[in-house]
């Protein structure tokens, strides 16, 4: 909690920088995200899924320090580009240290320029929130939660692109 003020002001500054850079490049578009990384609590993330109605969410838990996670991120980017017109939203939830937002996470996200929204989980006590994502989760990353209308599928594993697309298809088949 005590990171919030710092993160907010850091975000403001970063947001301004990004807007500035984008305008300089002459690529301003209404949909272009002005915020690279949004810090959110787990309640905020889960609340968004719960309020998402028929949207299918693919929520990947990752960190800049996790090699298999970083290797897997392009698959989530590709999946989103391919599936966003079918009501699929991909959220990349970083479990990096919230203190490393400006130093590590934001530069990483800027460099990679992935399309899905990146959230930095603003929590410091993993044992309090891991079970709320899924009781079967050991806490190892990467891990992915598929969510739609209260229905959920949790996978503690890393995917190839084909495996990821297959999981999503199977999950969407189960939808009413």
């Amino acid at each position, binding site marked *: 909690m005590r990171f919030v003020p710092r993160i907010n002001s850091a975000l403001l500054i970063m947001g301004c920088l990004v807007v500035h850079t984008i305008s300089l490049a002459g690529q301003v578009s209404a949909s272009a995200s002005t915020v690279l990384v949004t810090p959110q609590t787990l309640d905020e993330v889960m609340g968004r899924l719960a309020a998402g109605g028929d949207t299918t969410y693919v929520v990947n838990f990752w960190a800049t320090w996790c090699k298999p996670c970083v290797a897997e991120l392009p698959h989530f980017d590709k999946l989103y580009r391919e599936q966003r017109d079918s009501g699929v939203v991909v959220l990349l939830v970083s479990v990096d240290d919230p203190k490393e937002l400006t130093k590590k996470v934001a530069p990483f996200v800027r460099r990679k320029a992935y399309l899905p929204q990146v959230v930095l989980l603003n929590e410091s*006590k993993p044992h309090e929130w891991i079970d709320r994502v899924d009781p079967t989760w050991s806490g190892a990353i990467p891990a992915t939660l598929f969510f739609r209308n209260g229905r959920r599928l949790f996978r503690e594993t890393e995917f190839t692109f084909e495996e990821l697309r297959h999981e999503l298809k199977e999950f969407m088949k189960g939808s009413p």
Partner: protein
Amino acid sequence: MRSPSRLRGSIAPSSMRMMLAFLAASVISMVPVTAADLPDGVKPGDIAPNFILNNVDGKRVGLASYLDAKGVILVFTCNHCPYSVKYEDRIIALHKAFGPKGFPVLAINPNDTVVSPEDSFAKMQERAQEKSFPFPYLFDADQNVAKAYGARRTPHVFLLKRTPKHFIVEYIGAIDDNPNDANAVDEKFVEKAIAELVDGKPVTTQTTKAIGCTIKWKK
């Protein structure tokens, strides 16, 4: 040639039982890859599966090496994982604080070295030397120990208490509640569990979860 037979003579009855428990555990664990397919491993209250593995100093070490201890702080950890690195100094501190009280640290690297070359036995030896690990750092080359315990990530702690016949699993989970900042820790799970065991009380928090690196299973 002298010492192995002397050792065997002194530990035979309990170590046989532990060996059997371990064999039974290793038979059910057949090379799966995703977490959902892996065996559940042990729960608090279960008998701790025995093992004997190579230590970085070339010796063979297992639970049977701790028959004089009150218990063992078994930590699955490794070289490459940044979360293991964040906890390295805290693991050393645990050993220094609780080893003399009968609860030494025993560290095991369970990672496949093809998937994670930084966790090779030679690199383990380098790391143990660099950090002057005051505890053994064992290599679980066939990953059977990690599977028998149900270790999922690094670091992953299994606190064991010695009873006359077995080691019993008393606590599974994280070292404390704040991986990012050792100075902002509110709850020291392992220390609290040891304090309860030393007082002859049941452990109140038997499991916790933590973020960590997946164990790199053989492909």
